[in-house]
Structure formats: structure tokens, C-alpha cells
């Protein structure tokens, strides 16, 4: 593997976590991770050395996710029960997985713009400045989406 592939590989676990923050279930998150890695490899010439590979890759993933938003909605109508995703996975920590599924479904209820802000800051722990750069929006816009997303989540989970 060359330097780019090595760096991308090192980044994949975090990309996969971000994918779980965006996607509707773990299977979709793995598909999104796979698609992002493939697109990054194909588009590697567009990455400028010296700039953040992380931010570049997060942006690719976020764009693929947005691009598939329409088909996601269509699919939701065609293939109903959201519970289908419950059984996906290999043996492991069942309780932790149930919690993950539950939180993914809660995040799924947020508008996309709030969900991506929450995923970048709360799950990926990016600073406001970094998250705003990935999304290409002003910091003020990011913080207001973040606040609304968190309020909505609290209402869903605690109230």
C-alpha cells in the first residue's frame, strides 16, 4: 500500500463511526463506508497534499449520503419495517448493539442538516470550526443546527 492508502486505512475506523452517525442502520453504515473508501480511492488525485485528509474524506462520505437521500426515502417506502436492521450483525455485545440501533433510529428522525452537524461534533468530536469546514457552512449556521439537533434529541430520548 502506498502512503495515501495507508492514511486512508488509518482513517477508516473513524469514517465508519461517522457513517453510523449518518446511516439508518449498521448495514447501511458499512455500505456507506465502503462506497466512501472506493470514491476516495478513485478521486485520490483531487486530494491536495498538505490539506486534511480527514476533512476531505468526511466530505466525500457526507456528499454520498446526501446524494442517496432521495433513494433512501424511496426505499423506505418500498421496503417497510425499519426493524429489518435489528437482526443484522455477527455475535457480540447485544445490549450495546441495541442501544446503537436505538440511537441511530433517533438520529434518523432529525432533519439531515441537524443530523450531520450532530454526527460531526458529538460523535466525531470535531471542533465547531472543523465541522463547519467539512459542511462548508458558517460557524453560526453550524451551531444553530447543532443546538436544534440536540434539543430535538433530548426531547426524543429524555422528555
Amino acid at each position: 500500500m502506498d502512503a495515501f492508502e495507508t492514511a486512508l486505512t488509518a482513517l477508516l475506523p473513524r469514517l465508519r463511526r461517522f457513517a453510523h452517525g449518518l446511516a439508518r442502520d449498521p448495514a447501511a453504515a458499512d455500505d456507506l463506508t465502503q462506497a466512501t473508501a472506493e470514491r476516495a480511492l478513485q478521486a485520490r488525485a483531487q486530494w491536495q497534499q498538505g490539506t486534511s485528509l480527514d476533512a476531505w474524506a468526511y466530505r466525500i462520505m457526507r456528499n454520498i449520503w446526501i446524494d442517496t437521500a432521495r433513494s433512501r426515502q424511496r426505499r423506505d417506502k418500498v421496503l417497510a419495517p425499519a426493524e429489518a436492521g435489528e437482526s443484522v450483525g455477527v455475535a457480540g455485545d447485544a445490549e450495546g448493539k441495541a442501544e446503537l440501533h436505538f440511537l441511530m433510529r433517533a438520529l434518523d428522525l432529525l432533519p439531515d442538516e441537524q443530523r450531520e452537524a450532530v454526527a460531526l461534533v458529538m460523535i466525531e468530536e470535531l471542533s465547531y470550526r472543523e465541522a463547519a469546514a467539512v459542511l462548508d457552512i458558517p460557524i453560526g449556521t453550524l451551531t444553530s443546527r447543532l443546538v436544534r439537533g440536540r434539543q430535538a434529541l433530548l426531547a426524543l430520548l429524555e422528555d
Partner: protein
Amino acid sequence: MDEQRIIAWLDGELDPIEAEEVARAVAADPALQARAEAHRRLKARLAAAFGPTARQPVTVMPRPEAEVISLAVARQARAAKARRAQAGRRWALPGAAAASLVVGLFGGTQLAQVAGIEDRRDALALAAPIAHALDVQLASEARPVRVALSFRDHDGEVCRSFAGRALSGVACRVPDGWQLRYAAPAAAQAGDYRQAGSDPATAQVIQAMIAGAPFDATQEQAARGTGWK
């Protein structure tokens, strides 16, 4: 003191003077304190649930030279297959066959294990990416792991035949995943899209296991919708 500032404080986004100000205001007001606590709990809860997804190893595997296919060839093969199958795919991911590298997502337990199959209940559990492919893919999809036939066996379980990079075989859905029932080293297939499970040995195994006929596209989709139960 608005909620936005409290959140920025919890996120470590305030300078020390502002942070001190918010800390004092929150300490002095039980309502603000309760709200700050709720936000802190939410943050910890997300970190605890999503953190492990970044701790499982994920690797990029260079694909063997022979399997590198040009985009055009892959597209043709896919189109030809789609015409033959006539069962339309509802969705597809871009470029799976075209990438020069394949990303494999491995569950955390797999790499830590001692080599070799042990005499344990879960010894034949399939890990990602094959388990993942069996969970989500329909038979017609040309992907690094190919899935061919889905059927119900005499015990009523749903089983599927597959061919990965190094392993091909038949697995059945059990409550906590996919359990291997027959396996053989995958034959070197120079980038063709031969059906998984079309070799004589696998066909014989399926013949012995199957109750009734293999699923058609509609049955396969329905089975996926109910988690292959």
C-alpha cells in the same frame, strides 16, 4: 444565559473567561444546571454507543491483479446479468466492481482469535464482510462477495450460497448471525461473474439441504425484509 452557550461550554468551545462565566451561571441556577446535566448525559450516551464502531479493525485489501476489471467491462457484465435476471435491483452502490482496492470490514473478534476452527457453538459463525453480504445483498448483485441462491432448508432456516475472495460455500441464518454449513476455498476466478455455488460440490450440498425450490427475486426480497427468518 442561552442554551447555545451552555452547549458550547460543554463542547469546550469557549475561551477560559467565557467558560468561567458560564460555569458560574450554571452553578447558581438549578434549572440551568439540570439542562446542562441533560446535555452532558446525551453527549456521553452518544460517545458510549458510537465509540465501539471505530474500535473494530477495518482494512483495505489490495485486490489480486487478476480481479481488477475495467469499469466498462464491469458495467457490461452487470447489464448483461441484469437483462438475464430481469429481476430489477432496487438499489445499487456505485463502483463496487471498478475499484482497484476492496475494503473489507471485519468484526472485532475475528482478528484476535487463534487461527483454526474451535469446538465451540459459534465456531462456524461468519464474520463480515461475508456475513454482511449475506445480510444485505440480493442474488444478482456483482460485489466482492457474491451471493447466488437463497433457499429454505429442511429445518426451516434460510440458507444462502456465496463466493468471497478466498472462501465459498453455504451458510444458514441462525439467531445471532450466519452459520457456515459448507465451505471450500474459492477457486481463482479471473474476474468473471460466475454464479457462486455453481460448482458441482456446492450444487450437491444445496441439493441435499434444500426443502422445495430456491427463492425467486420476490421471495428473496421478502426474506431480506424480515431478517432472513
